């Protein structure tokens, strides 16, 4: 476990907690990224600008962090393209069907003590773990 980073994980998690706190306290909304991204296409026209700004903020935050610590997170390369395309499709479709993703259910929903979000988060984790087991250790599609 040479890559185990509990301190930076806790601190980064606390910042995510701060972000969803600020968003709920001031704007009264749940910071669920799949719902925000989906609304860019499907929400009412006057309900779209803040969505673009939140998404822009996500990109800017990562960009700023990378300016300060350029080698902390390096983009992955040479990962199988079919896994990215099919997997991305399933992430989008599944997030709509479950009405949320890790941020909406796993952080905001659990913080709100929602039983639905607990079930959703459990399903994300168990299904994700089983999928990685199959891909890495059964089919050996990715290293």
């Amino acid at each position, binding site marked *: 476990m040479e890559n185990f980073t509990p301190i930076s*994980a*806790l601190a980064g*998690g*606390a910042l995510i*907690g*701060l*972000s*969803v*706190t600020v*968003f*709920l306290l001031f*704007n*009264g*909304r*749940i*910071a669920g*990224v*799949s719902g925000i*991204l*989906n609304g860019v296409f*499907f929400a009412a026209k006057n309900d779209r*600008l803040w969505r673009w*700004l*939140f*998404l822009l*903020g*996500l990109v*800017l935050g*990562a960009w700023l*962090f*990378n300016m300060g610590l350029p080698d902390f997170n*390096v*983009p992955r390369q040479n990962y199988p393209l079919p*896994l*990215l395309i*099919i*997997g*991305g*499709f399933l*992430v*989008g*479709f599944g997030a*709509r*069907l*479950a009405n949320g993703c890790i*941020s909406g259910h*796993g*952080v905001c929903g659990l*913080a*709100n003590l929602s039983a639905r979000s607990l079930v*959703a988060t459990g*399903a994300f*984790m168990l299904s*994700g*773990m089983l*999928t*990685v*087991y199959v891909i*890495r250790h059964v089919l050996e599609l*990715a290293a």
Partner: protein
Amino acid sequence: MKTNIIALLSGIIFGIGLSLSQMINPNKVLNFLDITGDRFDPSLIFVMVGALSVAMVSFKWIRKLSVPLFGQHFQLAKNTIIDKPLIIGGVIFGIGWGMTGYCPGPVVAGLGLFSLESVIVIAAICVGFFAYNALFERNH
């Protein structure tokens, strides 16, 4: 205007949090999900613990307010029923998460690292959104 600035600010803090916690790194996510592998990395449980220890306390206090500080009303999920779409959607999402190592927040933040994978996966996620809408929300 004020709510737009908050949206941008919340996004920036979220993006920094995803970077510091390295949830933005898809291989780290896959190593977390790989519980039987020799590269298993439990760090991401600590991301959840960090986020929830802040948000559980703050949400408890925010729920006591009748209105948010800038908006007109709170917009929280009203559905409390644990139904088939929730579970099936959760399983489908998990399969995609395990195939890629990306969920929606980190993959958008990845654009800030000029990650080509982010562009591909975001496009695929959006196709998933449109497929869902075509199947289930025809009357829109």
